[in-house]
């Protein structure tokens, strides 16, 4: 296997003070406070911002969810009008998918992946910052629709021709379209960046098959994004052309076929489903071995089943369209394909179970959430198989059975994994452990609330309750289970909110105790991000780690004694790096990513309202591109540039192409 003699030592003590020379828009020099966050290119800060933004959007989407549940709790409710209900449920779905689950996955990928592969940062730190800001800009733009005439009202998949200007006048759908188009740019650049990072920035010795499972799942996820986002982009460009420029792509009168939208949307949409769940799979694949005190069972099969899910995710999109009138041959092919995606998913679940088999399990909060993911996701997976069966899907699709299914997959699956991840890596990110007792209360509230909310929806769906119904009448007999689900939703809502409350109170307690050091490795964990102090120092690793094993950190701690028995030979604290960053040079912060990102919504508003707005928008964008292109990658290069560039392999102006 790869040898380790490529180990790099950093030259000690070559710290360089940096200066900036470009005037008002000069490179920020050691910014503080808010400016520190606005201009940062540090993958850890960006990861935390992704997390914070998605928690904010979670609040928005959660309030929308509770409004839906209040409306549906009783028959013939008039809490929300038909119009308001359509906007609220559309925003709930859109926000939860694009602005909560996707970015919280990006938060973990950004924060953890470079640490897990022993890198200083991602491959392109400024593009990383841009990815975040452009996601935020798109998300905020979408949410300004609440105040500018109402949100979109077409559902999160927004079928044509109902999304056309005739059937949805006003700007609601335009906000959906422009907001997600802009956010999609961030996903695309983020994908390029993170894939490059995983492929190219791993520590010496860390071959692909020694990467932690979470890093693997990040890689698969980003490949899915890389190829899926452009398809959605095209669909949205066509929609914008129709709505804003009078084109005819979905004009049925002219002979257009509305199924084009469905195909394009679901070619994107199905990989999208997997790119929401796979990061959570990665997270629990880290948590379960740690608290089982065993390696993950069947690591290569975990990896390859993840890759297989990624591949097969491209061949099953039409199962969202079984009743759209595809024809029996297509339906048969996609039915079989969809059923078989259960195989790699089942492999993953069984491997988790067998990791726990014969283990010594510490039921900490992250572990509880991970077990919840395994079990709840299994339920979602089983109901998934039941509507992979196309004849049965004709009864189930667009009913609450589907709603139950995807909430079991995306909430009980993905989101539980993410909450577990927050508990697990909070000490690494913030320096304190979250309160365990509180965490367990939260866990039980969420699990109970979740099942009380969504289990009845299986019944409702099979009893024939269609989704996206503003109201129903007493004669359909849906009243009781809807009331149960609404009660559960409030328990679940409070439970979810406790994540933030626990972060806050645990932080308060930690500060009150004088910020005790939690130690580099509070969980006795397995991967190398636990070999550096908590919270992670700005420069990550003092020296580049050299990797010899899968779960390298654990293998450094536990080795065989003379009797061939595995023993703890060094504690984590003995082995941990000191966090001494003397002489480590880091990429410098920049104003341009956020400037470029926020020029895009101006253009978006311009397309929607008045083309005059395009002028300042495009000017700002050009200025930002220009500034970015001619800003050195970091201040050090700028200094060197004054000495001439003959000794530079990459150079000061090589950023040109990073735009």
């Amino acid at each position, binding site marked *: 296997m790869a040898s380790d003699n490529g180990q790099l030592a950093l030259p000690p003590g070559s710290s360089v003070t940096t200066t900036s020379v470009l005037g008002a828009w000069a490179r920020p020099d050691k910014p503080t406070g808010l400016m520190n966050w606005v201009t940062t290119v540090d993958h850890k800060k960006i990861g935390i911002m992704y997390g914070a933004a998605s928690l904010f959007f979670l609040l928005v989407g959660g309030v929308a969810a509770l409004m839906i549940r209040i409306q549906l709790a009783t028959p013939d409710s008039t809490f929300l009008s038909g119009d308001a209900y359509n906007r609220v449920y559309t925003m709930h779905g859109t926000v939860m998918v694009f602005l909560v689950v996707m970015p919280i996955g990006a938060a973990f990928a950004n924060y953890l992946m470079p640490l897990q592969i022993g890198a200083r940062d991602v491959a392109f730190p400024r593009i990383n910052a841009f990815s975040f800001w452009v996601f935020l800009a798109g998300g905020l733009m979408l949410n300004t629709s609440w105040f500018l005439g109402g949100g979109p009202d077409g559902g999160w998949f927004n079928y044509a021709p109902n999304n056309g200007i005739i059937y949805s006048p006003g700007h609601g759908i335009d906000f959906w379209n422009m907001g997600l188009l802009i956010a999609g740019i961030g996903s695309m650049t983020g994908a390029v960046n993170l894939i490059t990072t995983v492929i190219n920035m791993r520590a010496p010795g860390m071959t692909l098959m020694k990467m932690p499972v979470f890093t693997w799942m990040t890689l698969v996820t980003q490949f899915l994004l890389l190829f899926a986002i452009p398809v959605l982009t095209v669909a949205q460009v066509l929609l914008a052309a129709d709505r804003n420029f009078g084109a005819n792509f979905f004009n049925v009168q002219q002979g257009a076929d509305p199924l084009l939208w469905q195909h394009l949307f679901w070619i994107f949409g199905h990989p999208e489903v997997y790119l929401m769940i796979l990061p959570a799979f990665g997270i629990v694949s880290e948590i379960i071995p740690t608290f089982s005190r065993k390696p993950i069972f069947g690591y290569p099969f975990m990896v390859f089943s993840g890759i297989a899910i990624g591949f097969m995710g491209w061949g099953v999109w039409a199962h969202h369209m079984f009743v759209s009138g595809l024809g029996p041959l297509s339906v048969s092919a996609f039915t079989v394909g969809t059923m078989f995606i259960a195989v790699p998913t089942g492999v993953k679940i069984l491997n988790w179970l067998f990791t726990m088999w014969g283990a010594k399990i*510490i039921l900490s909060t992250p572990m509880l959430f991970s077990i919840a993911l395994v079990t709840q996701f299994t339920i979602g997976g089983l109901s998934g198989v039941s509507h992979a069966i196309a004849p049965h899907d004709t009864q189930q699709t667009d009913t609450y059975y589907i709603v139950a299914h995807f909430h079991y997959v995306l909430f009980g699956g993905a989101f539980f994994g993410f909450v577990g991840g927050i508990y697990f890596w909070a000490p690494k990110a913030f320096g304190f452990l979250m309160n365990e007792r509180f965490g367990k209360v939260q866990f039980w509230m969420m699990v109970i609330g979740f099942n009380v909310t969504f289990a009845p929806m299986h019944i409702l769906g099979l009893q024939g309750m269609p989704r996206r119904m503003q109201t129903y009448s007493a004669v359909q007999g849906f009243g009781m289970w809807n009331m149960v689900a609404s009660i559960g939703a409030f328990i679940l809502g409070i439970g979810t909110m406790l994540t933030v409350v626990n972060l806050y109170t645990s932080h308060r307690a930690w500060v009150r105790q004088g910020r005790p050091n939690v130690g580099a490795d509070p969980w006795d964990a397995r991967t190398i991000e636990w070999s550096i102090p908590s919270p992670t120092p700005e420069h990550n690793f003092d020296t580049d780690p050299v990797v010899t094993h899968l779960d390298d950190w654990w293998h450094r701690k536990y080795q065989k004694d003379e009797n061939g028995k595995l023993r703890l030979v060094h504690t984590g604290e003995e082995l941990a790096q000191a966090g001494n960053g003397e002489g480590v040079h880091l990429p410098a912060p920049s104003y341009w990513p956020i400037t470029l990102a926020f020029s895009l919504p101006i253009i978006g508003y311009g397309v929607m309202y008045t083309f005059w707005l395009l002028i300042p928008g495009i000017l700002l964008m050009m200025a930002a591109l220009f500034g970015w292109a001619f800003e050195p990658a970091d201040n050090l290069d700028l200094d060197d540039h004054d000495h001439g560039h003959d000794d530079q392999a990459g150079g000061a102006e090589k950023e040109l192409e990073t735009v």
Partner: protein
Amino acid sequence: MSIRSNLEQLMRSRSFSFRSLRRVCLVPVLALVLASCADDKPLNTFEPRGPKAQDVYDLMNPIWYVMLVVFILVVGGGIAIAFMNRVDGDTLDPNDLPEQVHGNTKLEILWTIAPAVLLAGISVFVVDDIWNLEEKNDPEPCAVGETSANCDGLDVMVIGQQWWWEYRYDVDGDGFFVDGNGDGVVDDRDRDLPLEFVLDPDDVATATELVIPAGEQVDLLLTSRDVIHSFWIPRLNGKRDTVPGRWHTWSLNADSPGKYTGWCTEFCGLSHARMRMSTIALEKDEFEAWLANQASAAEVPSDPEAMAGRELFAANCMSCHVIRDDGADGIIDYPDDFAANVPLASHAAPDLTHFASRTTFAGGIYATYLGPGTDPNDDAFPAENYLDISELAQNPTAADDYRWNSAELKRWVSNAPSRKDMHSEVDPESGLGRGMLPFPQLTDEQLDQIVAYLATLD
């Protein structure tokens, strides 16, 4: 072609009357409502009432048990493993490690192959069922004038629009269209435009309720005039989308007479939740009588109040609605350009020729007739005014006990957008609106007259 001959006979005899028709058509319909809809879950997919739905149910039934076993093993097993292997983290000796198992290739291969084989086995039945569900009475479109057995069986076109359903019965068995392109075959290529249908004027048009003969497969041809809808009668078959510009086939078959309700299941805009429908299966002879009645023109009323209503209707409603009647002034037949001047995106509103023979109106959300216990003037919106099937069921008296829901009808005619969300305002740019306009200019008396006229249209 017994339907057609029956129809011709009825037409020729000219002997049907208002009263007899009410007995022929409305009484069985209402009786069925009473008899079959006592169930409190009218949309339940677990209670199939037709061979197609039964097919789906039978396919899925054993799979539920397989799923249950997997559920118990994985979820129960997972929780049990976690519970049994738990240790106390605070007092744990770090050297007390469990056996460090890295994996087991044989096991992995086993649990990759085994579910794959299981799923492959299931998929044989699934694929077979997919093709079974597609089976039609008439596999090919019929040639013009063709009367082979191939062209037997009732065909109905289902047209979805915001937010009601239109049904076209191919009563004369010559296809739904005129052979417009002259290729000798009547099929969907004979349409003029994707969204506008120049249909065979000999066919019967109804709305909201699909009436079918029990025990026979009825083939449906589905399309839409505006956005995508989905036609779903859960107890008879699964759903199928109606997509504008596309023509999908589907079929229904009810084992026994009864009323089977459904709901539009593809989100279709503002009043999606108020786009409901039902299928009423009748005995064969009752169905034929019903169809004969639907094919006939409406009678010109004799009552002066209704006659006044008829004139008001002609003055206010005719630009969208159609009533085929046999008056000397030849009230409305489908005008050739009826699509051209109508300020509706769907370019159509329900055909009201036999309005009073339907049990619901306004897209299936209001009852045309009320049971004895219902208060017709209850203004509470919308609960009390929905067709309350269970209440009807509790009063199995004669159909004559049902009263004309004139209160709700008046409210509907005078201001439909206040009863059901619609975009009735006409967009000045496109000249399009979607929904029924309010008629604030109609006085209470005029509304009474219109409603009285509508009551004669059975």
